[in-house]
């Protein structure tokens, strides 16, 4: 048992709050070093927690010392631990990048807002109480909106406001669902609810599930509720886009998955056709998102639409849960591979745009000479997104197709393969331009760029590809998924 004073589970939530405040106190534009040191500590906590769980099974921590249903339990099982490691790792890499990206104090309030963002995300992954989850959901949402708005430009404010309204509708619907659940069951503790909700299920709980699901799907930008994502992720500064696309959308997906597997598992068992709805919308997301990415004019819009498409994959796993553990493995691996790859892609794009002073896709012509490392990182991330072996993206799609075929859902396999092909179209669009030497212009030489900016992108992209080879520890964690 770990020493209570230094319980990694609790410090994963406390540390980000601390550095959010500490980076707020000195004023705008400060705080990079504090944040980076703290993220290292957080990554250590996440790894230690993971080791703990693999050795001893899922862990709980009762906030206030009161057991549920009176108090708020914090809980960490394999799935939560995996998300925590992903979040801290990607966060650390993006933070290192952001320190170089925001030179001379232009970061304004980026660091305190990011601290709050991590506090919210970690709090969300560790919470075992539906209402507490609402508070963490809002923490994440408001921090993300703040990050989009940070800087005060009018386009940012517009994108941020659209994002905020969508986020508030989502969490508002979720909260109403929680109100119904409390009224029906008398508690909002996840572990108690899983046992309490059984047939016959009162209509109020069906409605609660519908509202909570709708709210969370809106926050995860599932087609057709994705309208807020491209402007928010496309117009924000590169490190912010990386955090949003790689991590924030995964948080609401995690919560949806948690509800599906936990308290509302009985409802899912009673109505298996329910699983088709997210899967159908996911398929539409894959096709529509890829199509819009192919047609995108601006590089960051291309990447943002790619996120819409990739998020669709996550929802394809729901009809195939009958195929054993494969579905969960596919989902988690895809979330992790996409998280690392998308973060790599956005920060590589940030470097490319900053150096080229041009944010359109056509402006990427000839950039291979100027920024070879960054472009390699972009390409490597693209490999994972396309699903080429041996990357993490490939393994995730393979598992998904395997699960789909063994459950007899052939169409899901078809969608997965088609999505991969479409992804290759928009990835190669960029790469093809990048490697071309433009005629009539002199040979462009490599431009100096802070090493941190290039190598963090490469690190993340390599991680995404490497996941295909080293996925076993991730799957070991999944055997420890409790309800």
């Amino acid at each position, binding site marked *: 048992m770990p020493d209570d004073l230094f319980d990694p589970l609790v410090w994963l939530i406390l540390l980000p709050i601390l550095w959010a405040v500490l980076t707020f106190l000195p*004023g705008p534009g400060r705080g990079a070093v504090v944040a980076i040191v703290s993220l290292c500590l957080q990554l250590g906590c996440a790894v230690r927690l993971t080791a703990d769980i693999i050795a001893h099974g899922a862990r709980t921590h009762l*906030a*206030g010392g009161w057991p549920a249903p009176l108090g*708020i339990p914090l809980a960490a099982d394999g799935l939560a631990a995996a998300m925590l490691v992903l979040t801290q790792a990607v966060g650390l890499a993006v933070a290192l990048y952001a320190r170089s990206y925001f030179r001379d104090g232009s970061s304004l309030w980026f660091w305190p807002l990011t601290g*709050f963002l991590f506090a919210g995300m970690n709090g969300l992954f560790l919470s075992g109480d539906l209402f507490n989850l609402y508070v963490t959901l809002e923490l994440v949402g*408001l921090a993300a909106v703040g990050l989009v*708005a940070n800087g005060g430009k009018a386009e940012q404010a517009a994108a941020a406001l659209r994002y905020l309204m969508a986020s508030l509708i989502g969490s508002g619907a979720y909260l109403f669902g929680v109100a119904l659940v409390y009224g029906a*069951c008398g508690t909002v503790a996840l572990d108690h609810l899983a046992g309490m909700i059984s047939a016959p299920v009162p209509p109020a709980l069906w409605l609660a599930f519908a509202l909570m699901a709708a709210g969370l799907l809106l926050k995860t930008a599932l087609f057709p509720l994705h309208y807020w994502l491209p402007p928010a992720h496309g117009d924000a500064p590169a490190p912010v886009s990386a955090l949003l696309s790689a991590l924030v959308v995964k948080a609401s997906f995690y919560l949806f998955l948690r509800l599906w597997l936990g308290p509302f598992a009985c409802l899912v068992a009673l109505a298996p056709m329910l699983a088709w709805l997210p899967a159908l919308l996911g398929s539409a997301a894959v096709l529509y998102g890829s199509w819009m990415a192919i047609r995108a004019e601006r590089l960051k819009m291309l990447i943002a639409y790619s996120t819409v498409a990739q998020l669709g994959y996550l929802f394809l796993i729901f009809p195939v849960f009958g195929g054993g553990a494969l579905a969960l493995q596919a989902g988690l691996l895809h979330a992790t591979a996409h998280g690392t790859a998308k973060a790599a892609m956005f920060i590589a794009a940030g470097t490319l745009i900053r150096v080229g002073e041009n944010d359109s896709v056509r402006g990427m012509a000839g950039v291979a000479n100027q920024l070879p490392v960054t472009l390699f990182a972009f390409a490597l991330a693209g490999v994972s997104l396309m699903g080429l072996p041996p990357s993490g993206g490939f393994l995730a799609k393979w598992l998904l197709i395997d699960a789909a075929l063994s459950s007899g859902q052939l169409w899901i396999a078809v969608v997965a393969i088609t999505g991969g092909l479409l992804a290759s179209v928009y990835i190669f669009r960029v790469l093809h331009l990048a490697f071309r030497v433009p005629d009539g212009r002199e040979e462009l030489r490599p431009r100096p760029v802070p090493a941190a900016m290039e190598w963090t992108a490469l690190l993340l992209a390599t991680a995404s590809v490497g996941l295909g080879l080293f996925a076993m520890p991730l799957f070991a964690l999944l055997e420890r998924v409790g309800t």
Partner: protein
Amino acid sequence: MLTLLAGLLVSALFDLPPAQIRLPVFVADHLAESGVRHPVTAVLLNFRGYDTFLEVVVLLLALVGVLASGLPKDRSPFTGNVLLQALARHALPLMLLAAVYLLWAGAHQPGGAFQAAAVLAAAAVLFELSGIRTSKRPDPRWFRRITSAGVLLFFAVAAAMLGNGALLQYPPEQAGFFILLIESGLTLSLAVNLAAFFLLRSTEPGDAQATDNEP
């Protein structure tokens, strides 16, 4: 379609069997150990104190978000209405008194830090609107320190309690003391935070300067 939703929801309400778990019983059973006499305060600051901690963090976060969005340059509204000024001169001391009472009363009646902070913030806004001028403009650094102080205090207590077994787990004999400590410490911080939502103005790009008064 919305009417359909409304209809479904309302009809679902009638079809509910009684809840299996009755939390009021749990609360009543443990109220004696909680350190306060009012059940809602006990839930808010002891049983579900972690939620309250996060909620204070959310308020500070919103403040940073407001700062990040860019502050307007114009002065906050000032009506110049003499009647309002006269009213304010009488009302403000009463509001301060009410806030202190609300804070103290929270232990055994509805009340507490948030309510007191709301009254204080309203007092600050009234002060500004009525145009009772002061030449003192608070330092942005102190503004940040005061608003952060609430979260830091709560954080310190929560972390210190880890030595006692769990996050925010008060020892039963001292629970009342810690709750009072947190509530008092939070009030000023929250009041400045809330008032700042309304009153903050910028003088230069990227620099935040508060025009609210400290009570």
